[in-house]
């Protein structure tokens, strides 16, 4: 046995604080962890937990206004804090490199990608510009980019999100660093692309013996990539240990709460989520004792008085909680008040008797690509002497003949990658976008081509909740004014009556009536989304379109909002079109699902039908790409490159990326409709028996309850 290796990175008691106008904001407090060479450590926690601050502190990139201190901050055996700014700069990019969250904003828009990848080699390894560029092309090839010479000459906006992220990873690898910090590297990407990037990171890590510090709010992704995990809460470490044991047997109440908040991708697991109550503490005025005690269902008197010390419930594990070992037998669900099963009316609410509330038939919407001049061509017609101008624009078919029906009280999930047309569909059904063709019937009224004044009564019945509550709430209006606005517009209430109704609506979304006088910036993300929901509910609608309504929220907040939506559906009999890229959320909430790809529907059916074979190859790939904490890894890989930008209407719309493509028939003939069970429809050339024999990436039964 060789002597134990020295850790690459040692962090002990790292503190970061900011002086604000009112006092001191404690962004990080006593954060400690270590990273061995070749190890991957996940840094998990919700927004505001200080994950990114750790990364920036390590790199020395926090501004001068941040006060950084640590008992020990050593990298490769040398102290980091005492280095001069110039020494830190030489270390950055060379010994430790970072990949940021949103690849599009992290690449300089006006410099060719190749030069951006080459820069660290020029400035750290002293290569000439041309040598570095050649090396950069090699790196781009290594991170799985085909035609790297072309990509090196391209500008960032010419690349897809996945390619941009690959280019950033190549940049980070350029100076051959020992430590790679990844700050939410896949959060902005589609799930199939995310799976590819995770594959790449895993193989790079093996081939280069890289140490990885992986920052993410997504526990599934951390489970995929990291052998150990460090959970942060409000700037403090609450639990560290090997990923598998921590996720199987979480010791800290916060870790348990996070896991209990995650919707699971499983059939028949429609039990109510158990979110963490309350919100993050004010870091300018942290509570005494344990930071988590105001939200902890296991708390006792001691937790309020003294900050807990670390203790070790198992090998390589440490937990900052007074009650470690005492709470083992009580699950989070039991502690917060028990998990009720969600499944209500047997067979779902698709009450066969009542006619559907929303019917959409053969909806079409296309967008012209490029401007007026781009569509103008000079061509010489046969038999003519001179070329003639012709105007033939190219179109993007956002909706290419979509049909659906939603029953009262039903949740119809709509999943697909970004750009597949799901947002266009949601907005077109509400006539926020005018369709080119097709019928939309809401509550018996045809609104597909009706003039605006005839739609008005329907507008009251059908409302929308947007993804980003920051940009969909007017920052200059109070919450009360925002919610009262639709009441006034539709003449439903005014004055004292409207104020009373606003109070009721706030109560409905579980907010105190005092919120009416607040402004959006005074609310947390989850509270803002509740206001967005309250506004949509103001007109007593019967149908809500939720466009990625929970995607921007932290898991514990997301769980609470999902519970709220389910409660509202039950209390008010609301029907939902629930648009999301997150299959777990759909599996949790929806009764039926539509899978969309490039403007058309590949598969539709009840949730239990879609999650199990037979399924469309695209559904299969989507399902297998979801990183999860409850199962191993076996994935279907989709081709990212080589896919045409648009579908030209010939053959199957999934042909470019289908891993199970049959051949010419997929490219030339529109796929037939397969109907393995009533209401379950698949558009594919494969034989039904073949699709039925596909392995299921989803467990049939809910996984063993997390203690």
């Amino acid at each position, binding site marked *: 046995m060789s002597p134990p290796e020295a850790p690459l990175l040692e962090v002990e008691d790292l503190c970061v604080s900011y002086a604000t106008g009112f006092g001191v904001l404690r962004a990080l407090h006593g954060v400690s962890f270590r990273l061995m060479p070749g190890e991957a450590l996940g840094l998990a926690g919700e927004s505001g937990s200080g994950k990114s601050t750790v990364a920036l502190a390590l790199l020395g990139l926090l501004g001068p206004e941040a006060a950084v201190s640590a008992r020990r901050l050593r990298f490769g055996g040398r102290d980091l804090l005492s280095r001069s700014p110039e020494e830190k*700069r030489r270390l950055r*990019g060379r010994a430790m490199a970072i990949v940021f969250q949103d690849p599009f*904003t992290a*690449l300089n828009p006006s410099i060719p990608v190749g030069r951006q990848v080459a*820069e660290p080699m020029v400035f*750290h390894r002293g290569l000439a510009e041309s040598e570095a560029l050649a090396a950069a092309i090699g790196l781009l090839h290594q991170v799985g980019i085909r035609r790297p010479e072309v990509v090196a000459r391209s500008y960032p906006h010419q690349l897809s999100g996945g390619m941009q992220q690959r280019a950033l990873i190549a940049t980070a690898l350029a100076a051959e660093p020992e430590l790679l910090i990844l700050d939410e590297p896949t959060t902005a990407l589609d799930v199939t692309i995310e799976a590819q990037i995770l594959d790449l990171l895993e193989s790079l890590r093996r081939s280069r013996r890289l140490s990885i510090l992986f920052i993410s709010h997504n526990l599934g992704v951390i489970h995929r990539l990291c052998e150990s995990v460090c959970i942060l809460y409000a700037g403090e470490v609450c639990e560290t240990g090997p990923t598998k044991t921590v996720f199987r047997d979480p010791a800290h109440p916060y870790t348990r709460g996070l896991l209990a908040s995650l919707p699971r991708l499983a059939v028949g697991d429609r039990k109510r989520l158990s979110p963490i109550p309350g919100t993050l503490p004010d870091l300018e005025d942290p509570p005494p004792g344990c930071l988590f005690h105001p939200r902890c269902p296991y708390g006792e008197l001691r937790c309020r008085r003294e900050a807990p010390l670390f203790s070790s419930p198992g090998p390589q594990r440490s937990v900052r909680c007074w009650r470690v070992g005492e709470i083992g037998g009580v699950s989070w669900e039991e502690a917060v008040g028990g998990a009720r099963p969600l499944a209500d009316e047997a067979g779902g609410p698709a009450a066969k008797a009542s006619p559907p509330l929303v019917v959409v038939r053969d909806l079409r919407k296309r967008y012209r690509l490029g401007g007026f001049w781009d569509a103008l061509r000079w061509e010489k017609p046969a038999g003519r002497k001179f070329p003639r101008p012709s105007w033939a624009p190219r179109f993007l078919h956002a909706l290419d003949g979509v049909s659906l029906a939603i029953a009262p009280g039903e949740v119809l999930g709509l999943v697909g990658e970004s750009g597949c047309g799901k947002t266009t569909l949601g907005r077109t059904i509400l006539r926020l976008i005018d369709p080119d063709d097709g019928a939309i019937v809401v509550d018996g009224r045809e609104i597909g081509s009706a003039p605006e004044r005839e739609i008005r009564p329907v507008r009251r019945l059908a409302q929308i909740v947007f993804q980003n509550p920051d940009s969909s709430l007017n920052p200059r209006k109070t919450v009360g004014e925002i919610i009262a606005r639709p009441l006034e517009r539709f003449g439903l209430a005014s004055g004292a009556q409207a104020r009373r109704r606003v109070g009721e609506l706030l109560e409905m979304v579980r907010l105190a009536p005092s919120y009416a006088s607040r402004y959006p910036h005074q609310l947390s993300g989850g509270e803002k989304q509740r206001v967005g929901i309250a506004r949509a509910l103001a007109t007593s609608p019967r149908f809500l379109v939720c466009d990625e309504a929970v995607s921007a929220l932290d898991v514990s907040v997301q769980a609470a909002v999902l519970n709220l939506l389910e409660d509202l559906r039950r209390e008010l009999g609301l029907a939902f079109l629930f648009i999301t890229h997150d299959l777990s959320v759909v599996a949790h909430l929806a009764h039926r699902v539509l899978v969309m790809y490039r403007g058309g529907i590949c598969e539709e059916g009840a949730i239990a039908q879609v999650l199990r074979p037979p399924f469309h190859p695209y559904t299969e790939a989507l399902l297998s790409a979801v990183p999860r904490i409850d199962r191993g890894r076996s994935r279907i890989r989709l081709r990212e490159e*080589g896919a045409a930008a648009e579908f030209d209407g010939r053959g199957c719309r999934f042909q470019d990326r289908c891993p199970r493509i049959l051949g010419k028939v997929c490219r030339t003939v529109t796929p037939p409709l397969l109907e393995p069970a009533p209401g379950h429809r698949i558009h594919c050339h494969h034989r039904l028996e073949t699709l039925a024999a596909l392995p299921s990436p989803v467990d049939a039964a809910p996984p063993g309850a997390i203690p």
Partner: protein
Amino acid sequence: MILYTLRRLALIVLLLWVMSVLLFAITQVLPGNVARMILGQFATADAIEAVETRLGLKDPLVVQYGRWFSHILRGDFGQSLIMERPIGPVLAEALGRSAVLAALSFVLVASVGILLGVIAAVRKNRPVDHAVSVFSYLGISVPEFFWGIAFILVFARWLGWLPSGGYSPMGEGFGNWFARLIGPALTLTFTLIAHVSRLTRSSMLETLRSRYVLAARAKGLPERVILFRHALRNALLPTITVLAIDVGWLFGGIVVVETVFAFPGLGRLVAFAIERRDLPLIQATLLVITAIYCLANLAADLLYAALNPRIRYARRTS
């Protein structure tokens, strides 16, 4: 790119034609009788009649416009009524002088303005930043004629370093020529610099806060590379648009500044023509200024596309 340039040039030609119609129409409705202006107050009715016939002033307006415009197309701007000389050479000479003055001012506005903006952004909220603000606002908040007079007062009258105005051809010595050029140029620069420096400062600050600048810092690049390669190039995009608009302001300012400094350029010619109701001269000078403004905006758009690859390439490569 070439196609785009040609398209824009075609549009400019169209614009100039519209402008010529407008100019012609406006000069027609100006008060005053052209023949009386030429002959003076005490001309007899017969004499006026004769002049009007000679100049074709009795023809229908469309015919007059057609004659005027076809002459312009041949490069003939007609006769100045007051100077009684062909406008072409007079205009060319004045335009040449003004072009030098405008070019010098423009280069100064662009270079000094961008430099000040970058310095102010890098030293945000420090004394240098505040000094730059005060300096630029001082220039823009008081009209050109004040700074022109102040300049003459300080440098010509009190210090005696420079002549108070006029023009001296380059042939009579570079020193003389430059001494008479620098006054109006600096005055113009001072009144225009705020646009450029303030905008560069704010867009530079925004760029320095961007993710890609943070990513560049994380690569461990030296500060100067971060500032000039990664930040400035992107920060300059809005500045270029404003610089093109500033060309318009520059020609507005030139009229005033050339008058104050007695600099015989296009601006003074415009002022002279308007003052004396020299209609053909007004038409010719204004048409030339319109053309310059259009070309400056075209140049700015081309430069913008050159700096911004998102405009240059509309399509994805893969």
